């Protein structure tokens, strides 16, 4: 099976490549760049489009098993394809959490049956995500888990995180941690600041993230473990990561696209679609996120896909769960909020969506190097469109971006050399 993608602007951050050329795909791998066709292959004309390595997300909640009303593995992976993702790593935000070999296998089987994008499993750090005892990281690793995380259940025990960072070293797999001091954020529904003060809503102070980021960095330094801070959102946390990297200590950090897009002012509508974790923060934090991305402090942009059924969101703010459906809006946000305004060029932006997450997870993906897996995303960089949640492939359409004007989106998503998604004009 051969596929020739012609006339596109090929951007491969891994190779520092950005020019118009063709990409030849054969037997599920990148066969050649700048190659001529033989005439017997399927041809895609990508004139005016960007041809990029397939996007990779490290923070997707597929919600199955246990929360199928929010999302299923089939619907979540379909949403991923529509958003331009060829690979997702799913967090153990399931019921029960993914803390056994059998549950890893369940997700892998279901994903294979859905046959959409690649799905890799991030298994629990602690049994039942309780933050008390280590899960069987070796067994989970053997079963195919590529990383460990307790998802949005931030590990409060410093001792447990220390042991996890040490123990996981023998498997060479990273710990993905959501830094949040529950003591400080308990009961909070939004960022603590001027807006929460006026609205009388319980706040989640930036310090709840900062103190945990600080602790996590210290433990990483002490253990030489592999830590990725899942979603940081505060100016101080970003500064802590920047200084740590300057000292030569290895750790990586990610940000959710929504956290460089909207501010906590949106909560003035009291709409639970804006209830997110990390919360939408004030302007200074949003600007710090953008600066962190611009100057390389933040390595990865994640979707933070946390879909929730509409009946769960149509409640009072304290009862509604955190989260949004975001796989289908993340790439457009990167284009609209980072590339178009000139904060990031295409290579830097795509690096945070492709090669950097691939490196974190140890995948032969996120690149257009000859021999790599033929996962590609073709992007129309100029199309203007408006977010209409009713057109989402995700089972849940809760998004704070309904009606939001976007620039650019994926038009074709190719997985293993096969066109798995092609956008039909709305």
């Amino acid at each position, binding site marked *: 099976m051969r596929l020739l993608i012609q006339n596109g602007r090929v951007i491969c951050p891994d190779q520092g490549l950005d020019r118009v050329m063709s990409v030849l795909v054969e037997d599920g791998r990148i066969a050649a760049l700048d190659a001529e066709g033989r005439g017997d292959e399927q041809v895609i004309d990508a004139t005016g489009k960007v041809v990029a390595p397939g996007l990779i997300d490290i923070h997707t909640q597929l919600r199955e098993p246990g929360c199928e009303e929010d999302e299923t593995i089939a619907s979540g992976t379909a949403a991923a394809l529509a958003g331009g993702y060829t690979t997702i790593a799913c967090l153990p935000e399931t019921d029960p959490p993914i803390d056994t070999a059998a549950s890893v296998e369940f997700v892998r089987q279901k994903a294979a049956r859905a046959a959409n994008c690649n799905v890799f499993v991030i298994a629990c750090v602690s049994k039942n995500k309780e933050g008390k005892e280590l899960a069987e990281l070796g067994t989970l690793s053997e079963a195919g888990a590529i990383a460990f995380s307790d998802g949005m259940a931030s590990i409060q025990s410093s001792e447990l995180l220390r042991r996890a960072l040490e123990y996981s070293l023998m498997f060479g797999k990273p710990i993905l941690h959501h830094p949040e001091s529950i003591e400080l954020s308990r009961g909070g529904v939004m960022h603590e600041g001027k807006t929460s003060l006026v*609205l009388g809503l319980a706040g989640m102070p930036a310090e709840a993230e900062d103190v945990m980021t600080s602790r996590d960095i210290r433990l990483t330094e002490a253990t030489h473990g592999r830590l990725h801070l899942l979603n940081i959102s505060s100016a101080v946390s970003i500064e802590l990561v920047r200084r740590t990297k300057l000292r030569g200590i290895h750790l990586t950090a990610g940000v959710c696209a929504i956290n460089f897009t909207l501010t906590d002012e949106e909560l003035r509508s*009291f709409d639970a679609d804006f209830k997110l974790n990390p919360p939408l923060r004030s302007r200074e934090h949003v600007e710090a996120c953008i600066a962190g991305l611009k100057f390389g402090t933040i390595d990865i942009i994640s979707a933070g896909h946390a879909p929730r059924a509409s009946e769960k969101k149509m409640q009072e703010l304290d009862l509604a769960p955190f989260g949004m459906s975001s796989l289908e809006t993340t790439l457009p946000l990167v284009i609209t909020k980072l590339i178009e305004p000139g904060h990031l060029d295409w290579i830097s932006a795509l690096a945070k969506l492709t090669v950097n997450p691939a490196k974190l997870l140890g995948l032969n993906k996120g690149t257009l190097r000859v021999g790599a897996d033929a996962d590609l995303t073709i992007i129309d960089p100029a199309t203007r469109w408006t977010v209409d949640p009713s057109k989402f492939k995700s089972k849940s359409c809760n998004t704070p971006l309904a009606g939001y004007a976007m620039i650019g989106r994926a038009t074709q998503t190719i997985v293993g050399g096969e066109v798995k998604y092609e956008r039909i004009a709305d």
Partner: protein
Amino acid sequence: MTAAGAEFETLPAVWTRRHLLDLESLSPAELTCVLDAADRFKAATDDCRRKISVLTGRTLANLFFENSTRTRNSFSLAARRLGADTVEFSSSGSSTAKGETVIDTAKNIEAMNVDAVVIRHRTPGSPYLLAKNLDCAIINAGDGPHEHPTQGLLDILTIRQRRGSLQGLTVALVGDIAHSRTARSNIWGLQKLGAHVILCGPPTLVSRRWEEFGVEVAYRLDDIVERCDVLNLLRIQFERQYTRPFPSVREYALLYAMNSERMRRAKSDILIMAPGPINRGVEITPDVADGPQSVILEQVTNGIAVRMAVLWLTMNTAQTNS
């Protein structure tokens, strides 16, 4: 309609809202409009005892998801004195206990052809949820620590009646600002009508951030008591606190209770207010609560006039718009 009701046949042009959700979004003209109407209702009904049937045939539903005595009865009396019928709803024993959402509960009440819903709920924003999902008039009777607009209005009305104007007055709100919906309504209303507002309490309950909104923040009552024209003493909302913001009630009373010693240092014509319920000996000592400067019971009486004004304005606007 009684003869006295003739003046209420036409709505003031400045009022175009069918909901009253907060005081933050009201203009000074709208605030004045409600206060003026309240004054007129109070005068026309001899301190609210007589009926003035401008809402005959209309129905008001009281949806109280939190306990209330004063506010609920005040709204009921106000509605009845305007000739409206009332439906009472409490969360205990209701459908919400069976898992029904607040929106569905309210929609069911609305389907019984009610014209307005008064809602009290522990969660900020709940009245906004109803305003988005229902067609009838929605009146916020307290949404968690966010706002309690009719309480703010009745506090302001009481001050205005006593002083003639808010302009230039110094009004201190003392106590648990962090968890007080009364404070959040007072802050906006008082400032818009020209008063200088001081928030006073321990730093754990009073954020410095309020200064960004033009409010003065003070941590010691003794530092400000001499220059206040009005002291509004707020209750400590223990039920809304996750952690104790001060070491003991005894220590709080020592630092913040309005007592006779502090009254001696205060202006001779100071007004002592409290939104109630008051905790005697905590925010206020009994002699001050019952003393000559206290207007606490006047606030309660004014509550009915304010709610009559609010029901008249919102229910008529809702009917006009529908």
